[in-house]
């Protein structure tokens, strides 16, 4: 099982690290857009769409990574006073009640919607560029899938810690 968990961690970590560079790309894209608009008075048709698409994909592909790095904020009023095993029990139960059901519903519905967008040839509706939205939406769904995968790892780990007497699994 250790091995499987390690693979999941690695997937989260590497998708996160790779997509983290999108912020630098977003910065450059916006600066380019500003320059051609302000200096050359010839704004790009794609500036608006590319900006929110990079932002959306970037944020979503970081979800699993953030979870792996324990970056999602917790309200620790009670939690911080629990023992390691207490925390593990709490987490394992919460994964079952507060994580998997919601995340599976969100992912399923987003996936369903993305496939519709792809098949219907849905395009962006504001700017004159009007790119296809299907691929963008599928990438977002992919981000949710990665998060669920990381959640599986988190759940198994919590469960192992909770069940193991005295010893912690790393």
């Amino acid at each position, binding site marked *: 099982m250790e091995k499987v968990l390690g693979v999941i961690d690695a997937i989260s970590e590497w998708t996160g690290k790779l997509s983290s560079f999108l912020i630098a790309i977003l910065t450059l894209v916006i600066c380019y857009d500003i320059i051609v608009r302000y200096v050359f008075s010839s704004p790009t048709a794609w500036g608006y769409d590319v900006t929110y698409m990079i932002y959306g994909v970037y944020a979503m592909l970081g979800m699993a990574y953030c979870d792996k790095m324990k970056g999602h904020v917790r309200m620790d009023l009670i939690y911080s006073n629990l023992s390691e095993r207490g925390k593990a029990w709490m987490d394992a139960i919460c994964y079952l009640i507060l994580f998997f059901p919601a995340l599976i519903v969100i992912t399923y519905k987003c996936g369903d919607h993305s496939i519709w967008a792809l098949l219907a040839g849905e395009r962006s509706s504001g700017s*004159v560029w*009007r790119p296809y939205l299907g691929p963008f939406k599928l990438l977002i769904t992919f981000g949710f899938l990665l998060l669920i995968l990381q959640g599986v790892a988190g759940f198994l780990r919590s469960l192992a810690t909770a069940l193991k007497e005295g010893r912690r699994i790393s």
Partner: protein
Amino acid sequence: AQDKVIKWKVQGFVPAGMLFHETLVRTANLVKEVTGGRLIWEVYPAGALVPPFEGLKAVSDGVYDVNYSYTGQWVGKIPVAPLFTAAPGGLNVVDMQMWLEYGGGKQLFQEMYDKYGYNVKVFLGAPISMEIFLWSKKPLRTLKDFKGLKLRMMPVMGDVLTKNGLPVVFMPAGEIIPNLQRGVIDAAEYSIPAFDKSLGIWQVCKYLQVPGIHQPASQTEFIVNKKSYEALPADLKVLLDAAIWKSRLEDWLWMEAKNLEAMDFFKEKGITIVQMDPETVRTFTKWAQDYLDERGAKDEFFGKVWNSQKAFGKKWYPYSKMFTLPH
């Protein structure tokens, strides 16, 4: 089942303080009145249930029952949709009503939603006459005033201008006024006078350009989820239709009166109304029509709608000109 009250959720396309929210509330009141309280529209402002540009898909999916909007919002989902709000360089508000009722427009409208697989039934709401073309910080009379201008314009006119060497900027509606104020853009298409008055765009732009080539009319629509509609008893279907018809005429004229007020208000505030050079207006109109011809040649259904409007115009324009006095 006679006394069972049916409740429908209805979302509009503007925030609650705006004119088109008031028309929605007025329609909802009419529906209640005409049906004797048997059909109730619970009104939600834009974005309360789903983002405004998603109303079509949401109603089709059954997230809620009715969406009040204009078809320009569906341009990403159905390329021809904006022509049912207005075609740039096309039909005026009265022309549009005639085309919809007696030029085959209404049938094409429903055909469009069916063809693209949306599970909705369309009802026509109030139209309103031409929009203001642009708000700007300097007067825009002739084509050369547009060169190098940082301009915000929505589809389809945005496509027309871009294609003819006047690239447009796109930004969220809410950021337009602050960006005009700070000079990120020089001019922007906004809306009808009554709408523009309340949001204060006149505080940052001293010039407004007419005529609104990009949007000679604005037709609104109510799209109803087909399942919700079919579930209505037969008499309620008739009453619903009657209520919406009443609101269509009442709200149209009511908004025109508001527009009149707003234009007086702008004059009072020292806004200069720039009547654009006729040659430039002709050029923009020609660009728009050529663009629509081109799109129509590539996309069959697009062509069907545009040609239907053109054909009706050919019959209608000479007649309406002949029977109008030169005031």
